[in-house]
């Protein structure tokens, strides 16, 4: 089980700020997790399309597509940050 978090525009578009998910065996990194979520279709497919500038953090550290994800992780999806 992992915790998935969504922020800002993604939170609004997906209509949720967090969910618990059981990862299938083929999901082992950020790239495959994103691909898995994209298969939900609709807004998931649109917002997580390869061309969209989505950022991912694993356990509160900025991640890359190759970053490993495993059971118990907190994985957040969000647009490029705009603070300051």
């Amino acid at each position: 089980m992992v915790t998935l978090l969504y922020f800002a525009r993604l939170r609004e578009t997906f209509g949720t700020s967090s969910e618990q998910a059981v990862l299938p065996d083929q999901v082992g990194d950020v790239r495959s997790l994103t691909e898995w979520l994209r298969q939900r279709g609709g807004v998931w497919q649109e917002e997580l399309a390869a061309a969209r500038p989505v950022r991912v953090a694993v356990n509160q550290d900025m991640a890359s597509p190759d970053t490993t994800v495993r059971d118990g992780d907190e994985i957040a999806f969000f647009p490029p940050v705009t603070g300051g």
Partner: protein
Amino acid sequence: MAARVQTEDFDLGAEIARLRQGNPAIGAVVAFVGLVRDLNENASVSEMTLEHYPGMTEKALTEIEAAAKSRWDIVETLVIHRVGALQPTDQIVLVAVGSAHRHEAFAACEFIMDYLKTQAPFWKKEQTPQGAHWVDARESDETAAQRWIPPQAK
């Protein structure tokens, strides 16, 4: 080193007094204060809401401060970032650095601000006459942060 995320406003004078209190090694303090403007990308802004990622925000800010401290000879740093609803002229962010000499404080303050802009998980949503919209990240902010990376490390 301190990082605070809060809805309340902050008092620059009081924060700097606290930062340098009991620290006679500090001979220079440089502070940056970011404010809400009433115009962005040619649209008038009546209000903005700042969202963040609790937990990761504090961690990211502390890591940026630690990176500045390892890079320059500085004594003390402070970052305060506000969240929630803000109006034009409101203060959004404070970055303050105390060091023995001014050059380190100027450089570290700018470094912390540039990295905050691209690494700390905050998002702005603006209210304009055309409706509310999420602010897009700027290429120029990414470029500003990149200039601190030595060419061989890129």
